């Protein structure tokens, strides 16, 4: 984990030191957006599952890990990169569906906290599985279009950053079109609005929830594939990813997809600017200080709805 962080800061933050302050800021800004885009995807995955099933899925980060690791190992075995990425997404989706069918569906009716503990168990289980199936080393993927930095107003941006940002934008647009324009997507929205009413109009809510887990896994895997050329991956990157993604979802207000994206980008920017200007050793702390401040000041998140208890 530390190695990963060091690698990341070497590639992204220290480069800025050589430039004047404006380009330094831009450097941090683009790094922040890149990291933030990944958090946004993780947070979006969280939100999709949370909306469909009220489950807070702490195994979300493991989908990111699976996306990166499976791609690395498939391409090491000689599979071309695009196909390796596709295999990784399929593996993550299969794991997501199994997670729903084997661990979440049988626990229906358990308390929110019990379900959280189950998903944490699933996260530890998947981490352990990856440790056995792959290895405990750090792995890198080649950048999709070379490593030559692109100069933008004095800041040098890795081409892979554009892949991350573009990929995130594409994922968000596809998800939006799916939810708003297709019948199945509308069924997902109906389920998240009111599960009982959705069932009454003939929506199979169990299928919808499985779909949410599968879709969420695919989004996580895509994030993992896009970011691995920049940040490296290993069997244990998932936990921190899940925590950060959760912080992002919380920042935007749980259950709000737009909020998840905004929250992710904000968190990435906050972290990178904080690491650049305040303290790089406490970089990982910003997300959690943020969570606590938001929860204490606005217990329902930035864009969340107020809930009223019925007695």
């Amino acid at each position, binding site marked *: 984990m530390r190695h990963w962080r060091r690698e990341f800061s070497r590639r992204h933050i220290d480069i800025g030191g050589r430039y004047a302050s404006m380009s330094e800021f831009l450097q941090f800004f683009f790094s922040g957006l890149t990291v933030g885009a990944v958090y946004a995807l993780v947070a979006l995955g969280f939100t999709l599952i949370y909306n469909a099933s009220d489950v807070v899925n702490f195994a979300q980060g493991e989908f990111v890990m699976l996306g990166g690791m499976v791609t690395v190992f498939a391409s090491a075995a000689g599979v071309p990169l695009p196909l390796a990425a596709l295999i990784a997404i399929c593996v993550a989706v299969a794991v997501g569906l199994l997670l729903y069918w084997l661990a979440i569906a*049988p626990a229906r009716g358990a308390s929110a906290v019990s379900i959280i503990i189950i998903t944490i*168990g*699933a996260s530890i289980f998947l981490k352990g599985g990856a440790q056995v199936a792959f290895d405990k080393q750090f792995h890198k993927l080649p950048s999709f279009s070379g490593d030559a930095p692109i100069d933008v107003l004095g800041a040098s941006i890795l081409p892979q950053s554009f892949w991350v940002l573009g990929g995130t934008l594409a994922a968000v647009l596809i998800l939006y079109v799916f939810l708003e324009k297709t019948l199945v997507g509308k069924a997902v929205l109906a389920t998240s609005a009111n599960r009982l009413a959705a069932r009454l109009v003939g929506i199979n809510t169990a299928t919808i929830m499985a779909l949410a887990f599968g879709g969420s896994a695919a989004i996580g895997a895509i994030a993992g594939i896009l970011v691995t050329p920049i940040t490296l991956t290993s069997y244990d990157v998932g936990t921190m990813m899940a925590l950060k993604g959760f912080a992002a979802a919380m920042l935007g207000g749980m259950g709000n997809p737009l909020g998840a994206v905004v929250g992710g980008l904000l968190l990435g920017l906050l972290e990178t600017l904080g690491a650049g200007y305040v303290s790089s050793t406490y970089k990982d702390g910003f997300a959690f200080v943020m969570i606590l401040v938001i*929860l204490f000041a606005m217990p329902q998140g930035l864009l969340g709805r107020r809930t009223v208890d019925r007695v």
Partner: protein
Amino acid sequence: MTTLLNNRYAILAALAVVIAVLPFTFPSNYYLRVASLVWVSAFAAIGLNVLMGKAGQVSLGHAAFFGIGAYSAAIGPAHLGLPSWASLAIGACISGLLAYFVGRPILRLKGHYLAIATLGFGVLIALVITTESRWTGGPDGMPVAKLTVFGWRIGTAYAWYWLSAAFLLVGAWIALNLDDTPTGRAFLALHDSEVAARVVGIDVAALKLRAFVIAAVYASIAGSLLAMMNGFVNPDLAGFQHSVELVTMVVLGGLGSIVGSIVGAAVLVVLPQALTVFQEYENLMLGFIIIVSMVFMRDGIVPMISKLIARAR
């Protein structure tokens, strides 16, 4: 058997008998070490059970207090020249005070929000411990001075076995007695219905805070004991995974059941030791145990057994 599980003196007597008899069945000192580890973890789990089982509040960052206790026992003698037992007491005070101040805003939250806030708090404390390496030795950890009481150095496996067992007995006794105090009765009311408890005039916020402080002090003492017993600390003691393990001990054993916390601690400590042959598979096993126990034994081991016995009658 069910009455036995409900009578606190019977529980304490049974626990004392188990503690007294166990060492005679152990073929080597290694088993004494594992048993001491179970007693210390059980001590922390019992404290957390007061918060989770009695007050109905979850903490996913409880290892933070465990870590504060452990590092107090390490830093006190090494940097400040304090005796170990005083460091244990100071660590417990720090944890209690921290819990008191952090608990106020945190315990206003419910459900997922409470879980994530305690989790964030725990990760922050672990981050501070890992980062402030001048005091804590950083990610590599630091050695801990051996405990000396009245000129006696407590170092042997036997000495630690009896000392940790004594702490466990006292800890269990206090937690069991809690049921008969006004605080314990209020916990019961809170657990059944927070709104009803508030209606009959219980200060719910103060009550939750009290449980949080109690749980923090238990965890801190357990952390100090473990640090002095192992002679070494590292940041993993305060980490997220350790928090999850503590919660799993409580839930696996049975929420609200003191015996359950001891059983849960025993399962989570002994199983990885028994599986050291498959060290690669440790995470896989831990994850599997957590999922299976939460899905199929939602009540926990001890309540499930007492229910089975009651049904057999």
